[in-house]
């Protein structure tokens, strides 16, 4: 009787969450997988075609060109975010953990952009970048830096980086806080004794702090990886669904959305291609995250 009651209670707490996850995550995941194995005529599922849709994405013009272009941009997102955003996050986290003057204020200031809506920030930064009325243009003109006045979002060589910069501004507070929390957990006595031995600051960081915050670095790396593969809103707000100009800012996210649901220019939705892309995005996220975690686990040290 008691056991039955307990089971009912457990079910009571699990079922609502599980049903929600099943409906919004598990079902669409398997539906996409299934859909990607079929031919589609508009919104009607036709015959089973096996891996043909994946073959189309990888080998047929223009799908292959768009796919590899998009994945190249996702890679730019990952590398830039790792190198710039997370390095600054680490630096800021370290400075804050050393309790520099005004650290409490800095902590809040750094984190504030993280709380803002990405859509709002995207639109605002698009206005800042405007080559005619934009804030940046006015700023550069005031500073006399006319060489900086260009169409940052309209030039294929700078557009993706201009969007990444916005994201770095918005998101650096997050790794900063995660690294700070990890560094605050490094035992004070280790650092103090090293300090008394006259160990330079850099060696202390590199030999004591860094190895002890590997789990935090792993978490941030995996989150950056997933964020970089899934990037969508940032491009959507600043360069539209077509990844203007000429797909220079296109990512797997916008390519998937455009393929599945169409857009002003590409028009014809192709559920088959969209579903295949969503499966590819999922496999990339899962596979690379697991590899990452396995890689980092080997480097972890414990006191």
């Amino acid at each position, binding site marked *: 009787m008691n056991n039955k009651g307990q089971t009912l209670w457990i079910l009571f707490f699990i079922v609502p969450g599980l049903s929600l996850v099943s409906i919004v995550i598990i079902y669409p995941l398997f539906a996409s997988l299934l859909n990607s194995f079929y031919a589609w005529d*508009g919104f009607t599922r036709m015959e089973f075609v096996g891996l043909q849709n994946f073959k189309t994405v990888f080998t047929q013009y*223009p799908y292959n060109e768009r796919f590899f272009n998009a994945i190249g941009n996702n890679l730019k997102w990952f590398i830039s975010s790792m190198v710039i955003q997370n390095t600054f996050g680490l630096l800021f986290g370290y400075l804050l953990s050393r309790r520099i003057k005004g650290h409490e204020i800095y902590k809040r200031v750094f984190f504030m952009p993280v709380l803002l809506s990405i859509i709002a920030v995207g639109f605002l930064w698009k206005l800042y970048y405007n080559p*005619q009325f934009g804030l940046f243009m006015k700023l550069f003109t005031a500073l006399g830096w006319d060489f900086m006045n260009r169409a940052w979002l309209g030039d294929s060589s700078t557009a993706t980086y201009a969007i990444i910069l916005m994201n770095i501004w918005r998101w650096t507070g997050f790794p900063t806080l995660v690294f700070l929390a990890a560094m605050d957990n490094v035992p004070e006595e280790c650092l103090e004794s090293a300090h008394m031995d006259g160990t330079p600051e850099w060696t202390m960081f590199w030999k004591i702090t860094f190895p002890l915050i590997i789990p935090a670095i792993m978490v941030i790396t995996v989150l950056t990886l997933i964020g970089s593969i899934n990037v969508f809103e940032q491009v959507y707000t600043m360069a539209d669904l077509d990844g203007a100009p000429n*797909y220079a800012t296109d990512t797997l996210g916008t390519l998937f959305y455009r393929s599945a649901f*169409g857009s002003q220019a590409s*028009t014809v939705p192709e559920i088959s291609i969209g579903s295949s892309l969503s499966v590819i995005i999922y496999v990339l996220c899962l596979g690379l995250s697991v590899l990452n975690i396995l890689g980092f686990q080997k480097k972890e040290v414990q006191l």
Partner: protein
Amino acid sequence: MRKVMLYVMIILICLPGSMLFAAGQQEEEMVELDFSSWRTEDVDVYEAIIAMFEEENPGISVTYSPYKTEEYQTVLAANFKGGTAADVIHLRAYGNFEQFAKPGYLMPLTEDIIPELAKYSAQSLAGSTSITDGNVYGVPYASQSLVIYYNTAMYAELGLTPPESWDEFISNLEACAAAGITPLANGTKTGWMDEVMSGVICPTFYGGNDFYYDILDGKTGFDDPKYAGALEKLHSLAEYMPSGFTGLEYVESQMLFLNEMAAHFIGGIWEDSYFSKQNEDLDYDIFIGPPAQKGGAQYISTFMDGSFGINKATPNSDEAIKFVNFMASKEVQQYISDNLGVKTEHPEVVPTKPLLMKVMDPSLTTTPYMMLVSFRYEQPSGSSLIQSGLQALFGGDKTSEEVVADVQKGIATYFEPFQN
């Protein structure tokens, strides 16, 4: 005791749902229709039309829901797929509506249910007639023409007259630049506006309708040097565009013209109502894309812009039919023509807007807005190819030869005449 608490919690969870259900039953008899559109700039006009309809039909209320132009097709696709599409739908034309008609999301319209349809010619209905089953799915909304707006006050100040040839157009642009005025407001960041610019400038250089029919017959391809040459002429306008034009979007280009910061704007006849409302002090007029040589054929690109259709799954089909029949009436079509300045297809409508009379000048040669009319049915659509290609051309990433080669290669993947 625990069991009792468990049951109480289950009841508490179910309660809000049952209350909602009860509330639903108490609703009044008023039928509410949702009417979706991409015309965010025309809210006032549609609300006025809806008010007229509601006055005649007291039991029906209509809500106009406009979406951003660039997102409308996507929103419709997602809503149809998810079963949440509006009752009455402002449909785009050609391939853009075919994608919803083909899977059966739209109600076929016949003269039995929409008697006003009898008045429209087959040609007027071409943009809303399915190429798959031949059924009509929408009451025509307007046909659009692509034109060049110019600031008449600036023209007067500089002593310029509307150009009658390409060379005169260039010399007018030069005169504006010499006077320190940005000659052209257009930027290239919004892909569909690049296609619009090509629709205004290019037909005279690729040979208008002859080239169009040669393409359809497969007698020539998009890699024809005439087509590359036409794109090159369009590209030559880059030096008259605002600084940083590759980063300027459609709305920002409109702003430049509206705020008298630029002398010309290449766009569609639909901009007229928006321009006149946004800046009442703006003095402007239009001219049509100039012919290559003075006295040569002057082409004006036109296309059916859309129609009013009905969601087949609507629970209020009788009311939706009533509303669409009202939209097809002479009264509404005249109101649209007068207030939006677009050419409507109802044969009894008399155009009153001066700009509209200009685009209907019989001396002009109308030519189909090629990619929209004929190459938006399959992937990669001609529009997506030319839009991204023009961005690459203007951005200096590709030459016009490379752009036309890409267009040809993309369309040849499904267009049979190009495959031999």
